[in-house]
């Protein structure tokens, strides 16, 4: 109450600038938790900053469902779109690339260059489609660990991720405790609520019900675009909050052409969501969407025994961050992870940010989030 503290000096910020992706290829068969294997494993990834001689300054960033390996910088001068966490990653930023070697990989099962249902089976020369094995978050993490091996890194300074990336982060801390120096999980949880599973399945049904899906064996140029766009529109609503949507769109209308069809875009929010749906289709694969959402629904740290028994493997200090307006992965789901860790006598911190951006709050630049991550990583 009476003691005040000065905010730490945050150094001048810079940008990582132009970046290029790289591909990790393992020619050994990769086996999945549920059984099934693929003859070779590919992960597309980007790195920023430099690995030091001791190889102990690496930070792994795990992306969310619709994210990818491009989390900072730009690919070329034509491209205006920055990496999805550009405000967080760069010289002088909380994930400081002048100190840390930062790695971000496209997940296993993804569709941006990593092995997934859309990639070509090296033996048959055809896409895996639904022959791609059942996927779990554990598989994603195991694949990333092989990438980390290939970079000659034994122990990561930190693993960080939000949403699905937060689940991977927790899985890292559980499966590879000796390789994780510390971890930060944002807007995540130990398992999906019934509501989260319900939303995911409605999205999957939109894809599956699209006649272009063809049991997953669609031509990549003629996929179930309508279904995928609807799935994305609905999922996108779950990433926002009612307050956020109200302040951004309210009941604002587009200039409606009365002569047009009755159900054309009328409200701003419709236009926004349709745009989100359409742009998602251009960069995302429907089968990947099915596989990843199913992996998330199956993720359950309460199983096989209890949350405490699963988390008992964790040794690294952790920071879990919840957001007040996140109703997809609500604060309580984040909090219970730290409650369990503290019950087990582990070093864990829970912080909750009051932000109006719903689940997507972790993707929004906010000074408090910025300072929290900066402080936790640099201590």
């Amino acid at each position, binding site marked *: *109450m009476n*003691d005040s*503290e000065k905010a730490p000096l945050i150094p001048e910020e810079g940008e990582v600038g132009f970046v290029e992706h790289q591909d990790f290829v393992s020619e050994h068969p990769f086996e999945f938790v549920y059984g099934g294997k693929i003859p070779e494993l590919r992960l597309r990834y980007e790195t920023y900053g430099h690995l030091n001689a001791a190889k102990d300054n690496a930070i792994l960033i795990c992306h969310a469902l619709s994210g990818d390996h491009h989390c900072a910088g730009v690919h070329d001068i034509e491209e205006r779109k920055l990496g999805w966490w550009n405000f967080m990653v760069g010289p002088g930023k909380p994930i400081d690339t002048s100190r840390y070697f930062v790695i971000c990989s496209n997940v296993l099962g993804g569709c941006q260059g990593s092995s997934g249902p859309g990639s070509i089976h090296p033996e048959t020369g055809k896409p895996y489609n639904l022959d791609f094995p059942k996927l779990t978050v554990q598989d994603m993490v195991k694949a990333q660990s092989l990438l980390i091996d290939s970079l000659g890194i034994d122990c990561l300074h930190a693993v960080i991720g939000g949403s699905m990336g937060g689940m991977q982060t927790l899985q890292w801390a559980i499966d590879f405790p000796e390789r994780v120096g510390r971890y930060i999980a944002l807007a995540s949880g130990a398992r999906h609520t019934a509501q989260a599973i319900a939303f995911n399945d409605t999205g999957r049904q939109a894809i599956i019900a699209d006649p272009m899906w063809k049991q997953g064996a669609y031509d990549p140029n003629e996929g179930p675009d309508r279904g995928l766009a609807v799935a994305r529109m609905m999922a996108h609503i779950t990433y926002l909050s009612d307050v956020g949507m109200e302040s951004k769109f309210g009941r604002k209308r587009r200039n409606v052409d009365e002569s047009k069809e009755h159900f054309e875009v009328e409200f701003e929010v419709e236009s926004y969501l349709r745009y989100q749906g359409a742009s998602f289709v251009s960069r995302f694969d429907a089968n990947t969407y099915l596989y990843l959402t199913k992996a998330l629904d199956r993720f359950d740290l309460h199983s096989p025994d209890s949350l405490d028994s699963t988390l008992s493997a964790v040794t690294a200090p952790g920071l879990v961050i919840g957001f007040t307006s996140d109703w997809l992965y609500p604060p309580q789901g984040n909090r219970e992870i730290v409650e369990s860790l503290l*019950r087990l*006598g582990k070093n864990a*911190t829970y*912080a*909750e940010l009051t932000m109006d951006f719903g689940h997507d709050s972790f993707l929004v630049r906010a000074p408090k989030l910025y300072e929290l991550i900066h402080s936790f990583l640099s*201590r």
Partner: protein
Amino acid sequence: MIPIDKKRQADFQIIARWVNEGECVLDLGCGRGVLLEYLKQKKSTYGVGVDIDFDKILSCVKRGVPAYQGDILSILKNFPDDSFDRVIFSRTVEQLDDPDAILAEGLRVGRRVTVGFVNSAFWVNRLSAFFKGRRTINEVYTKPWYESQPSNPFSINEFEDFCRVRKIDVENRIYLSGDWNSECSLSPNLFSGYAIYDLATSV
């Protein structure tokens, strides 16, 4: 006038005296984590803080003190019996919604409970109420009532009553005088400004 951080040092030192080397400590209403940092340095404790306010948790993170942002009663209910060697309420009890239930939970979760509080019956407060008809405003309570959080101040005698009624064993009690520095033994309910109690559950 003694500056506030000097004032605080005395109660920190007393609490550190009671804490054993390497103990596991839960600090409820931990603020910026200063006490836990102090105990870690002096007694190599493993401490966890609890506070409702994000900025306080952020300060704990900066100090390297693990902390939980949330409600005290809900986090206490999370822990099995005797999870901690010591549960600390340092200037926290007067701000609790349900002090009776929370102190009972503290005694269940901790083998020992330390309570530090400002004695509302301190003579200066009495004089201020009697002559001015106003509450005391000093370097600890700097704000008028309309800028303060709701608070439920109590006196040393009232706390003694509580321990008796609830059959709580008082293992140790230390009274500090008005400067919160030197110890005070004479009529503490009148002359002591700050009290620190070391409690245990009656067996």
